């Protein structure tokens, strides 16, 4: 079975022949973690994309399409605004939705088509979602106010976003069919959703309903990437046509077994409590034991529930990978 076939099997709730995929889903590693590992023996010339196969994990290739041109004005501080109102948004438009940057990424995709067709690795792509993207424009805090202060602007941004993404999707599918995709959102936190169901339905639902059917038509699985406790939001997401979530953050209280029971047909990626990796090998084994029954139900790829934290030594991470593969096999036996 090829790497890609294994992925496909799980995404279709079928059993892979040998084992589940063994991945770190977050292809963007925490920079501090990598720096620490380099001081512990990891060669420093290994790029982010080569890191997973180097460490012994299955490769998967992510394309995150840029929604702002490289020369777009930057926020003055982390999470700060780059536009404040409708006029600001209009002034910013020349820098947004850069079709030419998508074209460049599509060229990169073309170069990988043969290997993807051969089954060497799954390919997935990510787009800035209807919560995330306005947040990058309006700034973390103003964005939360904007549901009340700037509802028309919010709708306008999401209309433009949907148009851009539909254009992008057409280009993607002219080259190949990615195995899954994510809407980057981060719209939940430790105590649940950041916004109400009413706000979700008023603002995000129409946007999702414009973009999602086209993706599903092509057979790419549609997943939402949202940290924190997503439990309460899953029914809202399902209603919007979404087929799965990641990373199912344990520290925020997500109980993947309970979720599986409530949603037998929903895809899950993540759920492995990163905090156990900080504590040691025994805790990690306990964590795999917790996840094993759900791994057996299919439609679930276990993986660290966000980036591996910097205080996990490289040696322990290797042990984690060994265990991940051990349980990935157990899950299909």
């Amino acid at each position: 079975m090829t790497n890609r076939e294994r992925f496909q099997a799980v995404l279709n709730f079928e059993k892979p022949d040998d084992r589940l995929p063994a991945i770190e889903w977050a292809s963007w590693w925490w920079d501090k973690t990598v720096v620490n590992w380099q001081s512990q023996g990891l060669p420093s010339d290994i790029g982010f994309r080569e890191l997973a196969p180097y460490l012994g994990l299955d490769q998967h290739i992510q394309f995150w399409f840029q929604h702002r041109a490289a020369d777009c004005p930057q926020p003055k501080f982390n999470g700060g605004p780059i536009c404040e109102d409708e006029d600001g948004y209009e002034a910013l438009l020349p820098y947004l939705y850069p079709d030419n940057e998508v074209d460049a990424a599509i060229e990169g995709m073309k170069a990988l088509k043969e290997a993807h067709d051969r089954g060497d690795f799954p390919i997935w792509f990510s787009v800035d979602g209807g919560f995330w993207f306005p947040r990058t424009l309006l700034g973390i805090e103003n964005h939360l106010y904007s549901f009340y202060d700037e509802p028309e602007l919010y709708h306008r941004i999401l209309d433009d976003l949907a148009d851009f993404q539909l254009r992008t999707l057409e280009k993607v599918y002219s080259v190949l069919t990615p195995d899954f995709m994510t809407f980057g959102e981060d719209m939940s936190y430790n105590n649940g959703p950041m916004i109400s169901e009413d706000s979700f339905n008023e603002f995000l639902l129409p946007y999702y309903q414009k973009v999602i059917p086209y993706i599903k038509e092509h057979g790419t699985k549609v997943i939402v990437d949202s940290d924190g406790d997503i439990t309460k939001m899953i029914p809202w997401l399902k209603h919007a046509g979404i087929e799965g979530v990641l990373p199912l953050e344990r520290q925020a209280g997500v109980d993947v077994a309970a979720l599986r029971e409530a949603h037998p047909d929903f895809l899950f990626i993540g759920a492995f409590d990163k905090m156990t990796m900080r504590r040691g090998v025994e805790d990690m084994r306990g964590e795999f034991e917790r996840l094993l029954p759900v791994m057996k139900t299919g439609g679930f790829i276990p993986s660290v529930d966000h980036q591996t934290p910097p205080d996990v030594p490289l040696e322990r991470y290797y042990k984690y990978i060994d265990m991940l593969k051990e349980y990935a096999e157990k899950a299909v036996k």
Partner: protein
Amino acid sequence: MSILTEISENLQKGKAKIVKELVMQAVEQGYAPEEILSKGLLDGMNIIGEKFKANEVYVPEVLVAARAMNVGSQVLKPYLEQAGVKAVGRVCIGTVQGDLHDIGKNLVKMMMEGKGLEVIDLGTDVAPETFIQTAIEQNCQIICCSALLTTTMGVMGEVVKKAEEAGIRDKVKIMIGGAPVDEAFCRQIGADCYTPDAASAADAAAAFCAAN
């Protein structure tokens, strides 16, 4: 409906302009500034806090309500000062060094203000020394530390240590919170109080200040 109830209800809906007008009207009608504060503004914020705790309202609703409260408080401030009304306590709050997450910290601040506490906001990436220095110079009864990263939560332990070294540990309560923090960690580092959400944090802080 009394004007104070109207203030509370409009505050809960985040109607800052209306709250401002109503507070001015209430002053003109001769209501005591303290009463406008407690039965109007703080009452509204309390209700929002409880609803937030129960996941009946979410972050945007809390933010717009808190903004309405601030607008109302600004109008009321000179009258409160004239009447000699003091804040029920003084708190300094910040996100610890190395950490830039501040939505939670801001909510805690707003909820505490909603309990009538004066809150000094030190912002994000705050060094342990800054918490201690502020607590000493500004006479704070409580230091509040927020951390969202496992890599920065350790700084909270430093704050406790520095408070001991500065000889103020028995005079100041140290409250901690944020996504990776829990009760066990609070005990481990010798802090005084952990709560999982902003409304409970404000309850705990107000209770502490009332007892002292």
